[in-house]
């Protein structure tokens, strides 16, 4: 009994599209026949602006693309430029970068899981529990670099300033407290029958599809593909720390949620090891403000909380980049969305979008 299809806009102004992003759904009753993504509402053409500024002036841009994990944005850009200009980085800076990246991953996953469960209908309670943890991490960022969200902390060749003396003790306290908090989330959310009923078997993405659609991050690992750039192509100090990669098995919303939760545990484990192994010493190799890297190109990429964040930078020997391209994981993770959502109901489509965990700043750039 097929009625006439109803086209509704899960429009740019919608409580759960995580920003200005539109889904045009054609519905037959509650079933979704087709889904079209309309984006570009937050397009600031970062790539054009970056060509107008010097290499160091571009660092603040990298905070504003993925505003939920600014530290990893800085790190990816600095790695790319260091690879392009061949600038060495002192060991202490490597460790500081690892600590900051893992803290940022923990905070970003707090938001990701909180909003996902919020889309499932848990009336902001888990989200605000996780905000409590995220606040502690942001306080640490404020201690280190003065800003909570757009940190602008990393420089080409190292880190802007050394950690203040009371940073490491406070980090040690936090790292002692976080495991029980994560255990609390697992008890509150993972054991919750309603979330299992809502999320299991919804928005399934098989391993072959995931690889073909070049999806990355928790979404790729949720589909059972063990691939993590921190292990495959270790940067900063990831080579000297031991950690595991959580991998889902069935590739549905529930597995992606589990992978993110387990990754939070692994981040805390890395932080514990980093606290003991961080050396002292300089934090930045001196780099002239008028940096003119030799003509050429470089592709630096890291494992950001949303996936493989890469910077493809081309230099013509001038003071500003000739081409500055951001490989944004959120945009590419969205490619299989129409496939995953066909045949589901509207609430499932909303959860699937929530489980992909996009940041529209990074989608539209």
């Amino acid at each position: 009994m097929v009625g006439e299809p109803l086209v509704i806009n899960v429009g740019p102004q919608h409580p759960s599209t995580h920003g200005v992003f539109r889904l045009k759904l054609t519905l037959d009753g509650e079933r979704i026949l087709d889904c079209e993504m309309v984006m570009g509402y937050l397009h600031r053409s970062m790539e054009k602006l970056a060509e107008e500024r010097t290499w160091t002036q571009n660092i603040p841009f990298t905070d504003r693309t993925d505003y939920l994990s600014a530290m990893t944005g800085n790190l990816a850009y600095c790695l790319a430029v260091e690879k392009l200009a061949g600038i060495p980085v002192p060991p202490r800076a490597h460790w500081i970068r690892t600590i900051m990246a893992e803290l940022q991953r923990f905070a970003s996953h707090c938001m990701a899981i909180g909003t996902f469960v919020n889309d499932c209908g848990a009336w902001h309670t888990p989200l605000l529990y996780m905000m409590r943890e995220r606040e502690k991490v942001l306080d640490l960022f404020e201690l280190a670099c003065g800003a909570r969200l757009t940190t602008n902390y990393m420089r080409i060749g190292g880190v802007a300033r050394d950690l203040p003396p009371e940073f490491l003790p406070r980090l040690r306290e936090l790292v002692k407290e976080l495991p029980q908090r994560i255990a609390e989330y697992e008890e509150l959310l993972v054991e919750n029958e309603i979330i299992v009923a809502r999320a299991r078997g919804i928005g399934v993405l098989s391993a072959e599809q995931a690889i073909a659609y070049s999806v990355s991050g928790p979404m790729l690992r949720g589909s059972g593909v063990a691939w993590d750039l921190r292990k495959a192509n270790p940067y900063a100090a990831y080579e000297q720390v031991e950690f595991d990669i959580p991998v889902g098995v069935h590739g549905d919303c529930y597995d992606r949620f589990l992978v993110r939760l387990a990754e939070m545990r692994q981040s805390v484990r890395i932080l514990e090891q980093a606290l003991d192994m961080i050396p002292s010493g300089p934090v930045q190799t001196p780099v002239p403000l008028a940096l003119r890297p030799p003509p050429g190109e470089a592709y630096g990429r890291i494992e950001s909380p949303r996936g493989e964040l890469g910077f493809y930078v081309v230099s013509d020997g001038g003071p500003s980049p000739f081409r500055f391209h951001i490989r944004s994981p959120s945009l590419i993770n969205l490619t299989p969305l129409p496939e995953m959502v066909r045949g589901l109901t509207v609430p499932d489509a909303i959860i699937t979008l929530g489980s992909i965990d996009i940041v529209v700043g990074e989608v539209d750039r």
Partner: protein
Amino acid sequence: MTLLDSWWDLRDLGHAVAAFLEWLGDRGVPSWLPYLVSTLVGLMALLLWALLSQLFFIWAERRLLARIQVRLGPNRAGPFGLLQPVADALKVLSKEMITPRGADKVLFWLAPIGVVVPAIVALGVIPFGQRMVLADLNVGLLFIVAVSSTATLFVFLAGWGSANKYSLLGAMRSVAMLISYEVVQVLALLAVAVFVGSIRLGDIVSWQGRYNTWLIFLQPLGLLGFLIASSVEVNRTPSDIAEAESEIVAGYHTEYGGIRWGMFQMAEYIAGFVVAATVAVLWLGGWTLWGLEEWVPGWLIFLIKLYGVFFLFIWLRGTLPRLRIDQLMGFAWKFLLPLMLLNVLLAGLEMVVWKETEAPAEVVLPIWAVGNIAIGVGLVVGWALLMGHLRPRNRPARSLLVREVGQIYYRPLEEV
């Protein structure tokens, strides 16, 4: 009934009204006037109580939800944010009542009225005290369910009238849901009526008073079914599907503004009070507290129970995620309905056995209580295990922890 039966006895405000009517009667006024006056007084008292406690609960809900969510909640307007509900009410009153262009004027205007009136009318039957009830019909229980079922149509009219895709979706969903949970609700109440033998609310309370037991011990399954069904009727989480913010914006009352939207909120709260009052009267012994009602005013005990049950709804809202509409319907027809039918059968059997053996109540009731609770817990846990954990698909899992890159561990979900 008691030593002090004259008008200053505050244990039951009904005495004062009765004394006033007698005084009025002696004045030689036409015979129907006292009847009219008592209705007006009762109506005024009910409305005043409903609105005041609604305001209180708007504040209490926001503060409680805040406490559940590790935050403070409104504390700016007045001490501890007590004036916040007044501020909300003024805001809602002053907002403009917009009517969308394509809307069906009559239905759009009629819907909020149609949703609020049943909720208020149902208040009239609830016994706050021995003589504090507006109209103690001998079909009281059925009256509550019947009146609150008329609101369902007006919910649909709200969605249909406001000519907006989201409201239409919300209206269709909420009506389908309300219908299926009404069946469960009536069956849950039926089991209580079987035990007490009458559906006059006054009788139910006096039955519980006479035997000094609360029906919650005798009818745990009935209470469980009724609570879940009524949390759906009143559109509160875990089933506020109708206005599932994260999905279809605000369901059937998306297009409403100003006091019309305020009416929907009032209807939700007052329907919540009606349901909480029904639970308090039926399962928690109304205004009796094993003899305590001789000293403590009956209506105070009743209100404490009512607010306690309402607090349970708030607690549910703060913690549980939302079920999808088809899961909710499946839950109603496949899990709750059979349970309620079984419950009615059980109640019937126990009454027959009790009547045949003429055993004294003190012996029979404890046995039934223990038996019912055991069966209830066994059924719920057994059924939940059967439907939930035993099926591998629904078992909560953990992700694999892997050391090396490059391996693929994907396995398609086996269909169950």
